[in-house]
């Protein structure tokens, strides 16, 4: 097994755990935790491919930086939604948020 394969397996496993969590949890913040894990798995893949395909091109790391930013801002926006929802309804359980259809 090469480090690349090992890292890709880690990424896949984290993505799976995150997907399971995002789908199975009812609480908004727990769902966000699942999403963060999924993004973490994606980041592992990006770093592993950068390292083993084009380690001399540092632009590859930029993708990871952007994903990291997305993680932080996803958390900020999600918390903002959660605070608004909690003020309005007193809970952030997603099963009670059926009116939030897109």
């Amino acid at each position: 097994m090469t480090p690349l394969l090992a890292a890709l397996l880690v990424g896949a496993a984290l993505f799976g755990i995150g997907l399971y969590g995002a789908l199975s949890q009812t609480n908004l913040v727990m769902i966000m935790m699942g999403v963060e894990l999924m993004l973490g798995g994606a980041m592992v893949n990006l770093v592993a491919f950068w390292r083993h395909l084009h380690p001399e091109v540092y632009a590859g790391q930029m993708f990871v930086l952007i994903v990291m930013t997305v993680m932080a801002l996803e958390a900020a926006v999600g918390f903002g939604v959660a605070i608004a929802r909690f003020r309005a309804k007193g809970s952030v359980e997603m099963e009670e948020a059926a009116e939030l259809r897109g």
Partner: protein
Amino acid sequence: MTGQLIAVAFFGLAAIGFGAGVFLTRSMVRSALALLAAMAALGGLFLALEAEFLGVLQLMMMGTEMTLMAIFMVMFMMDPGGLGQMEMTHQKRTARAAGRSGAWPRPGWRSGPGGGGGPALHQRPSCRIAPWGWRSWSA
């Protein structure tokens, strides 16, 4: 090469273990701190893959972000300590299938136990939470 492989495997397994711990515990602060530990392990993984800046940055950013997540969990949950009985999951079968197919390439991967509903915890009101103890309650 082998040294790198060992480091990647170590931090990767740590990340997977803590990542699974996020959904196996019922204490919300534990859940958030397990996510923090998983993300910190990913930082170690990045360092092992020689992405220095990203690794240290990951350690730093996720430290603050997940700790703030812990306080938001404590604000929004009815029962942040995980002491009582509360159903926190839904659509278990779909989620399990999706998670399994998402992580399909891992040989021998089995998705975590389907979260949720440990029975009758309120009968033991002062029970101490067992280490990452989900099994001990639902057994």
